[in-house]
Each structure stands twice: as C-alpha cells, then as structure tokens.
C-alpha cells in the first residue's frame, strides 16, 4: 500500500472512531426505538399482562388506519395545524415588522414580544386555563362565557387550545422573523424608495421576498410542531370534550397510558408510525411546493 493510501485509511479510522459515541447514543435512543416501534405494530397485545402477544402482521395497521377514530383524530390534527400555523406566522410577522424600527424604547416591546419563548407549555396551559375558567377567568369576566364553558365546549375547545399554542410559539416566531428582517440590507429599501416604491410596495416587493427563506422555515417547523403538540392538550382538555381535541399525539398517549385499562402498545405503535409518515410527507411536500417560491440570497 502506498503511503498516501495508508494515511487515508488511518484518517478514516480516526474519523469513524470519533463518530462512535454519537452513533451509539443515536442507536440506543433513536434507531432502535424507531425500528422496534415498527415491529410492535405487527403484534396484537394480549388482554392481560404476561400472556404471549400475537403476530397479526399488517392487519393491525389496516384496521387502525381505516378506523373512524383514526380519521377523526387526523382531521382534528389537521384542523389544529390550520388554526395555529398561519395565524402564528401572520402574528409573528406583524409584530416583527412593527418592532423592527429605530425608536426609543423599542427594546421593551421586543422583550415583551419574544418573552413567550421562555414560557413552558405547562405554564402557558395553566395561565390560559385560568383565563378560560368559567368562574374566576378573565374571559368570562369580560363577558365571554358561553355555556358549556369554553374548554368543555365541543365547538370551542380546539380553538382554545390553538390559541394557547399560537401564544406560546409566538415568541419563537417573532425572534425568527425579527432576525430575518434585520438581515435585509437597508439600502434595498432605500433603492426601492428612490425607484418609486411606497411602504406597501416595499413590504410586498422587498420585505416578503427577502424574508421568504425565514417564512418558509417557520412554516415547516410550525407545521411539524403543530402535529406534535401534546402538553397543552393534555393539560387543558385531556383530549375532550367528546374527543374533539384528540389529536394524533394525544391518541397515541391514550393507548399507552397505564391508567387506560385497554392500553394497547401495538395500536400506539401503529399510530406513531402513521404520524411519522404524515409529518415526513408534509415536510417533503412543503419543500417541493413552497421552496420553489423561496429565494435564497447568496
């Protein structure tokens, strides 16, 4: 072997050697559970512990994925994403544009707008539960007090949880979009102003296109976030009323919740696999469809 080949081999060994720790962690906490989950979905769990589980292959996948329960849960999840993602980005954009001025004291507003990034889902859920509370809540005090109460109301519960989610993610969206805005060179706005563009034209012809990579990124992660939301649903509505907030993550959780006597890890596995492929598919579609309209400055 030539000296060069030997050196290359040695470098490769060192390189892979350095990757081993990370690979091990990924293997134990990501790859193994991921594959194991697929496998779990092929077995029907016994009604009582310690009995052997039964191989049913794709039957369980088929049964669950065609059930009304799954379809309803998926519809709820999609509705939830539609309620949270566009509203969250729209609000984040509006606040970021408003705060992106050189004014005295603007830092105070920036801090307020981004503060929810430091709030946990649990805190947000508790705050809003209090606001929605039919007896001591702020909204009922303001006269917004439908019967049944907001979070027990089948027509309003999902919207209420969506509101909490928008509020809680607003800080992150605001920071993301603010960073994107600040990266737009000032002289583009000046050039546009001299080229005859008023503020509206500058917003649509300069700000939005220059911000498109950021908006695209916010859209993709926002959607993935929406499909994975769990904490606020668990804490505020517990999937109810009448399963009207039973999004996929919550349905998965219900199936493995030990309080649930009919817990079925196999079913939960099937639902998680479904959620995985749906999220993956969404991300791919967004990349293909949306990214064509995105301009990446070089």
């Amino acid at each position, binding site marked *: 072997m030539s000296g060069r080949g030997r050196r290359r081999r040695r470098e490769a060994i060192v390189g892979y050697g350095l990757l081993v720790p990370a690979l091990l962690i990924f293997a134990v906490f990501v790859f193994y559970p991921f594959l194991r989950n697929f496998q779990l979905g092929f077995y029907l769990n016994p009604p009582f512990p310690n009995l052997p589980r039964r191989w049913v292959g794709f039957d369980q996948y088929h049964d669950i994925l065609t059930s009304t329960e799954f379809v309803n849960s998926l519809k709820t999840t999609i509705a939830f994403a539609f309620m949270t993602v566009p509203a969250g980005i729209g609000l984040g954009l509006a606040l970021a544009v408003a705060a992106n001025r050189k004014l005295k004291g603007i830092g105070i507003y920036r801090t307020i707008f981004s503060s929810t990034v430091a709030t946990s889902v649990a805190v947000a859920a508790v705050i809003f539960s209090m606001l929605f509370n039919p007896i001591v809540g702020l909204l009922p005090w303001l006269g917004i007090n439908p019967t049944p109460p907001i979070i027990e109301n089948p027509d309003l519960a999902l919207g209420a949880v969506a509101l909490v989610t928008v509020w809680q993610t607003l800080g992150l969206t605001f920071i993301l979009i603010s960073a994107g805005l600040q990266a737009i060179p000032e002289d583009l706005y*000046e050039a546009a102003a001299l080229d005859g563009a008023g503020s509206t034209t500058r917003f649509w012809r300069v700000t939005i296109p220059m911000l498109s990579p950021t908006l695209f990124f916010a859209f993709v992660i926002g959607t993935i976030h929406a499909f994975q939301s769990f904490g606020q649903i668990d804490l505020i509505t517990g999937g109810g009323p009448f399963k009207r907030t039973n999004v996929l993550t919550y349905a998965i959780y219900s199936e493995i919740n030990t309080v649930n006597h009919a817990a079925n890890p196999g079913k939960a596995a099937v639902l998680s696999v479904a959620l995985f492929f749906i999220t993956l598919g969404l991300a791919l579609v967004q990349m293909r469809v949306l990214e064509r309209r995105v301009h990446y400055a070089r």
Partner: protein
Amino acid sequence: MGRVSLAGVTKRFGDVTAVDRLDLDVADQEFLVLLGPSGCGKSTALRMIAGLEELTEGTITIGDRVVNEIEPKDRDLAMVFQSYALYPHLSVRKNIEFPLRTRGVPKAQRDSQVAKAADALGLSDLLDRKPGQLSGGQRQRVALARAIVRDPEAFLMDEPLSNLDAKLRVQTRGELVELQRRLEATVIYVTHDQVEAMTMGDRIAIMNHGVLQQVGPPQEVYERPANLFVARFIGTPPMNTIPGELAGATAEVVIGVRPEHLHLTGSVEDGIDATVVVIESLGHERHVICRLAEGTQVIVRQATELVSPPMGDAVRLRFAPRDAHRFDAVTEQRIA
C-alpha cells in the same frame, strides 16, 4: 432633466454637524462631483438630495420644486448605490424594470425601455440571470441600467466604482462620462477618489468636515486651490507646503509648490538646500523625496530621462515664482 440647488443645507446628528450650511447649484446636464475624505459629509449631502436623510436646516430644490417635504419616491431621481443594492430575488430584467413597474408604466413600454437600457449597457444577454450569478462589473452595470431606464430629473451616484477592481474602474469611468453626455443627464457623483473627480467632473465640489471648501472645474481647482486643504487633497503626489515669510510683509505664509514644479539643480545656483531621503521609481516618472534643512519633507517629480541623484546627496531645489501658491498660515486661505 433638471437642475439641483442646495441652499444653506445643514445636517446635524446630535452634536455632530455632518453638513454645514452647504450652498451648491448643479446646472442642467452638468456632471458635478462631490469630493472629500471619508466622513466629510459628501454622502450625507447626497442622501439629503435623495430624501433618505431629513434636513436640519436649509432648502433643496430639484427642477422648480422645493423637495424638503417630498418623499424619495416622488422626487423623480435615480440613484446608484456603492453596494449596487440590486434586488437579489429578481432577475436582471425585473431589476431594471422595477422603477417602471412601481410607476405603473404599461407592459409594452416597459419592455422597450428595459431593452433599450440593457442594450446601452451591454446587458442584453444577461436579462434572465439573477444578480448572484453576475460579476461585480456586471452588477454595477445593472445598477446603472436600473437608473437610466427612466428619464429622471437627475442621477445620484454614491461611490459607484469603488467596488470594482482598478482596471475595470478606469474603463467604467470613461463609459460613465460617455453615458452622461449621451443621455444629457444631470449627475451628482460622490467619491473620495480625486482621480475620478478630476477625470469625470465638469465641476468638482470639495468638502471637508461638512464644509464646502471649493467648487470649480477640475483644472481650476488644481491650478488655483482655494485653501491649504484643497491644495494638499488634490494632486498625486500632493502639493508640497513649506512654511515661510513673505518678503516685505510681516504675515506668516505657507508656500505651496506642486511636485512637478520643483526642480533639482546643481549646487552653484541659488535655491533651497535639501537632502535626498528616498527615491521612488514609478516607471514613467520618479519621485525624489527630499528633506529641507528645517525638517519639512518635499516631493520632487522627475522624468526618468533625467539623471537620478544618489540617495543621501545634498541638492538644491528651485521653482519658478509663478508656480508658487501662497496661503495665509493662520486662516489657511489662498492669498491672491
């Protein structure tokens, strides 16, 4: 096309006066260069004309309108930025077309005007590219095309050549002047490069510390600098300045002599005693740097055909009285 006029224009940023009572008249179809070192207020002055900075005091008139309160978009100006400020998400065609679209020019007319501007700047083959795919020189031409696609009152240019390499800068310099003549355009051009100012401007306005120092045709500014700052700023190498006294007067003066007007002579003739310190050969000419007895360094510009004095040699310097510029040592103003 139109004239641009500044009267008592002042800009203060807090305690700093960036532009101090600037009076300037730019004639129709004139190429006026605002020249000065960085921080002298020339860019601020240009940005006030553009409407990108508000005036603290004074009046700006474009054509027959006072434009102090008029938005940049309604001032009917075109500007070329140092960074070019091209819209990176738009093709070259869309970039050039932008000022026409915002003003609602119909499609057919837009197309013909874009084609004309692109043709004038040799961009016809690049219309579908994005700015990111162009070289620096090409981007600069797109910025120019975007400016000339309309027929504005005046063109404002903020160091448009400073991001080009030296060779391209010289070439573009000539092209810009040619373009200005062809379009019969009024141009206000900001630069810190005196060679650009000398070669391009019909007139040069020299600024320092926010104050206008002198306005005039390049040759006049070179031959009759109004004060010591202008004398030292214009010319490469700069004018030699020697402290002295005026015969028959008590006032202290500074004598200025351009390097090409200083001559080395044999020791028998009268002249100023000096020692050769450094000799710089530029190929087509030679700079002989000498130290005078009292310590001042002066530069003598010499043709290479002449015999170079040895380094460290004692020499005598002579100049014709008509080549000497006299400045008041206190006010630094030219003494007629």
